[in-house]
């Protein structure tokens, strides 16, 4: 057992490290995939913040008014806009994943195209959410 291990140095395959990713030119599918993780992790961290907002909206009429004050700050609006993007990106990418699992659009070109389409759908919706948040719409 030990002799064979010494004789043959077997190749090792590891995940690419975060510091290596920036030097890679990632295909569209990889960018979409990593952003799926980033958006998911962001929403995970923001969960108590969102529950707090939900709580304020429901306790009483008074807390409902307080929620409006909280939401009027530009920083909170910016955070919410980021979370809107996270939700929309995660949702659209998730639908893409389920379609791929059903063997829909599984060919290389189709998958690369749908990876781009995720942004074409989620970014305008995020923009609409942003316009609504900042009171333009």
């Amino acid at each position, binding site marked *: 057992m030990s002799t064979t291990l010494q004789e043959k140095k077997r190749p090792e395959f590891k995940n690419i490290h975060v510091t290596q990713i920036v030097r890679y030119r990632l295909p569209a599918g990889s960018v979409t995939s990593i952003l799926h993780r980033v958006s998911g992790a962001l929403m*995970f961290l923001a969960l*108590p913040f969102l529950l707090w907002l939900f709580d304020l*909206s429901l306790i*009483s009429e008074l807390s409902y008014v307080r929620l409006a004050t909280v939401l009027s700050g530009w920083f909170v609006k910016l955070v919410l806009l980021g979370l809107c993007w996270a939700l929309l990106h995660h949702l659209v990418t998730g639908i893409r994943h389920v379609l791929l699992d059903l063997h829909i659009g599984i060919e290389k070109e189709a998958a690369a195209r749908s990876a781009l389409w995720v942004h074409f759908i989620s970014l305008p919706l995020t923009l609409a959410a942003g316009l609504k948040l900042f009171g333009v719409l």
Partner: protein
Amino acid sequence: MAANIGPKRLVVGAHYGLRDWLAQRITAVVMAVYVIAFAAYALFVLPAGYETWAGLFAPLWIKIATLVVIGALIYHVWVGMREIFMDYVKPTSVRLFAYVLTVLWLAACAVWSVQILWRV
């Protein structure tokens, strides 16, 4: 089948991978249906104001439906975060610590959401 089973080959497992994969998709579909239906209703149908908003969460069935979706969310987040930690956090002790923090974080969120929903 039987030919594959022997002392040098493990052909049966606990199916954690398949279970997580399937659970991730089922919880995702449950959440997507709820979120899209809820967002459409709240944005385009429901009149603005506290009374209508709080009234929306008054019936028992909507409380239960919302809590079930939050349960799906928490399971979904657990599978996803576990996957992220498995890929990027290599030292076992640190990873275990991250798992414990995640479980506590999610358990706290679950308990809090019950309190929020049942106070209305």
